[in-house]
């Protein structure tokens, strides 16, 4: 469809795919927010766990986080990237077919996640809970996305690549790398696998991933969107294009090193902790450069803030970005982290970012895109304004309640009497104190959800009232150096993109190939080390612990702080978790640390506590796990599990592997007998609860000499 002058062409953009991703965003945002409200209610009011295996907190929480990050934010990012890139590059997407594979593949992944997570198929690593078949699917679809994006880049008609595109490129490359490295795992069965890393190594990889997932899934793509949609919506150029470039390069160079700030005061080596802290503090500068750049783009257009809901959303989002990126470095300072870590402050921090920054960017973008794509007017500006205020109040209620709850609880944990004892030795005291704030948080979440529903209705009416849309031709001017085509220069530029795709694939394949043999077979401490690996029954219990998501409320990592040692025992050592595939250090203490809970209570105490925690701790908010007493343990699979772990370097003998099930049944009988002897019911030896008790009683008991 070339015009006479070959520099001017009429082309069609693929807006259908953008619309598809927008609708998917709306659907899954609903799921993510509803699941969020549900888990918030469960924490405020434990009966909301509904005594249900599939809906208890530990299983719904991964559903909430995964849906929010990968389904809600993910679909929105794809919509925004596909829409803005076509315009910035003056080219239709590389392949309509790949676009559709990307779309349907991603939705299939989300549906698979929504089914498997409640069923308890989980990796036990936060934000990476999905099991191995889904992990592989994510990798494949991400490669499809990458090829489609870089292909579009290669056939672009605009020589200059606007800064937003750089943010997209960094996103695509880095997320692929993070996902592949962190998901390296060896399957045991169709929906169970063990990560190749153990203990401290797993912790490092996990938080390298976890931190950079925030950086490259929830920050860089959104900054790209900000640099495109904010100027477009305000109809003003970005305040300083130069600053945006500095923002980008500074951010991508610094972010990748900051992960260890999630592991301050753990058994991670001191220097790695300090490195993480220093880089985190350095991040403050570029982040604020970006925030200022975004806000000052509105210079001279501040009046829009009063009238235009899109600008309201964008300006508030950028402000929350500034807040979160100020708070992040603050929390990376060791002394601040000692109070904030494991508390709800972190939860508040995250939601300032997700609800305030990501959510509001997405809402602003949707209000901008839907009328334009469907060629109509927004149904109601009033409703959009109402959405803004409910969402804003919801976010503030959420954020403030969690910061106050976190600091309150953090200080209570550390409070000591003058004679050196804990002021609040009963953990539950520190829980009941903040329970009212859990209600405020749930209320904030409900407001946010209500605002979102207003938007859904508003957009539904907008789309319904829209005329039947036909794709429109767009006239574009090719600015890539045309004379260079003959000299081959253009070919070279094309080569750069082909080259990046190839490098990217090479890195992917290379890391997978490299990582399996080196890490899988590597024993990083001699087998003579001071720690005993789990028995088969304990391992079975550990897998239940992972399945039920206990790590989402319990940590297993005692920090070297006086109050913590008093409360839980001597600090955790790196050796103690050396056979833990995956590590279960946790990141949140809604309940107490469990690293040394073994032998603290008799078996029967655990039995009664697991079935109904309120029997032993009247005000507990922990869910009931009644199904553990009725479900049977799968003994046979333990052989396979042991052989996989042995291959990865756990020092099990051939006999232990071959007879894992027999050893497990033997130990189960002993525990069942002890339960009965203590006055519990009989006939529990094949039930899951016995495996769980075996595991809990082993915690902190595996080091041959207790660490000092």
């Amino acid at each position: 469809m070339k015009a006479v002058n070959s520099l001017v062409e009429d082309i069609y953009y693929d807006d259908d795919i953008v619309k598809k991703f927008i609708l998917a965003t709306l659907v899954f945002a609903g799921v993510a927010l509803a699941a969020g409200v549900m888990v918030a209610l469960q924490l405020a009011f434990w009966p909301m766990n509904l005594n249900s295996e599939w809906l208890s907190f530990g299983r719904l929480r991964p559903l909430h986080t995964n849906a929010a990050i990968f389904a809600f934010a993910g679909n929105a990012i794809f919509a925004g990237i596909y829409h803005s890139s076509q315009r910035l590059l003056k080219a239709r997407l590389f392949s309509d077919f790949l676009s559709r594979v990307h779309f349907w593949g991603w939705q299939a992944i989300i549906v698979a996640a929504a089914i498997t997570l409640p069923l308890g198929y989980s990796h036990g690593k936060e934000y990476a809970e999905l099991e191995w078949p889904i992990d592989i699917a994510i990798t494949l679809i991400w490669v499809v996305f990458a090829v489609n994006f870089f292909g579009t880049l290669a056939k672009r008609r605009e020589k200059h690549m606007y800064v937003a595109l750089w943010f997209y490129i960094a996103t695509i490359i880095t997320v692929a790398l993070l996902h592949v490295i962190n998901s390296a795992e060896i399957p045991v069965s169709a929906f169970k696998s063990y990560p190749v890393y153990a203990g401290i190594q797993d912790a490092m990889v996990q938080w390298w991933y976890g931190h950079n997932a925030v950086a490259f899934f929830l920050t860089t793509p959104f900054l790209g969107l900000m640099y495109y949609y904010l100027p477009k919506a305000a109809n003003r150029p970005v305040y300083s294009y130069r600053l945006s470039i500095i923002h980008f390069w500074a951010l991508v160079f610094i972010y990748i090193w900051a992960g260890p700030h999630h592991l301050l005061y753990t058994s991670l080596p001191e220097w790695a902790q300090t490195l993480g802290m220093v880089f985190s503090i350095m991040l403050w500068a570029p982040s604020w450069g970006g925030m200022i750049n975004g806000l000052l783009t509105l210079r001279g257009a501040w009046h829009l803030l009063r009238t235009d809901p899109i600008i309201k959303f964008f300006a508030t989002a950028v402000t929350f970005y500034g807040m979160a990126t100020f708070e992040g470095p603050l929390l990376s300072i060791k002394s601040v982290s000692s109070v904030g870590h494991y508390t709800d402050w972190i939860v508040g921090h995250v939601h300032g970012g997700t609800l305030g920054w990501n959510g509001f960017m997405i809402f602003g973008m949707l209000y901008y895109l839907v009328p334009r794509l469907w060629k109509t007017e927004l149904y109601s500006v009033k409703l959009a304004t109402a959405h803004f205020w409910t969402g804003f109040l919801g976010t503030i209620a959420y954020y403030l309640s969690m910061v106050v709850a976190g600091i309150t609880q953090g200080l209570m944990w550390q409070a000591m009497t003058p004679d050196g004892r804990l002021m609040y030795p009963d953990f539950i005291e520190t829980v009941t104190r903040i329970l009212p704030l859990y209600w405020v948080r749930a209320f904030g979440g409900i407001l946010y959800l209500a605002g979102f529903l207003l938007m859904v209705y508003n957009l539904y009416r907008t789309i319904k009232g829209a005329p039947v849309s036909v794709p429109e031709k767009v006239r574009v001017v090719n600015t890539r150096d045309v004379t260079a085509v003959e000299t081959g220069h253009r070919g070279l530029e094309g080569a750069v993109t082909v080259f990046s795709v190839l490098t990217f694939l090479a890195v992917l394949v290379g890391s997978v190939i490299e990582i399996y043999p080196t890490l899988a077979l590597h024993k990083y401490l001699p087998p003579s080390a001071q720690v005993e690996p789990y028995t088969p029954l304990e391992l079975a219990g550990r897998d239940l612990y992972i399945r039920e998501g206990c790590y989402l409320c319990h940590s297993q990592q005692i920090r070297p702080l006086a109050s913590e040692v008093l409360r839980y025992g001597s600090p955790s050592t790196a050796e103690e978790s050396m056979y833990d595939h995956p590590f279960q250090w946790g990141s949140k203490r809604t309940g107490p640390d469990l690293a040394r809970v073994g032998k603290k209570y008799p078996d029967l105490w655990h039995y009664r506590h697991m079935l109904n925690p309120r029997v032993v701790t009247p005000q507990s908010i922990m869910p009931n796990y009644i199904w553990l007493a009725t479900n049977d343990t799968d003994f046979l699979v333990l052989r396979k599990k042991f052989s996989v772990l042995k291959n990865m370097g756990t020092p099990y003998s051939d006999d232990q592997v071959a007879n894992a099930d027999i050893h497990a049944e033997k130990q189960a009988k002993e525990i069942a007998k002890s339960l009965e002897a203590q006055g519990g019911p009989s006939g529990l030896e094949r039930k899951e609860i016995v495996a769980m008790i075996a595991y809990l009683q082993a915690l902190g008991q595996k080091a041959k000499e207790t660490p000092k």
Partner: protein
Amino acid sequence: MNILYLMIPLSLLLGFGFIAGFIWSVRSGQLDDTETPAYRILDEGEEQP
């Protein structure tokens, strides 16, 4: 801590990748003009609602 032998090279690889990207962007003139791109996106590629 063997994991560092994987993670540091990978992080460096990523870093070098970004450096290569940066050098390419300077060489190919991507950063020559830091004024007009901000204006260009405003009047291109968007049909009015």
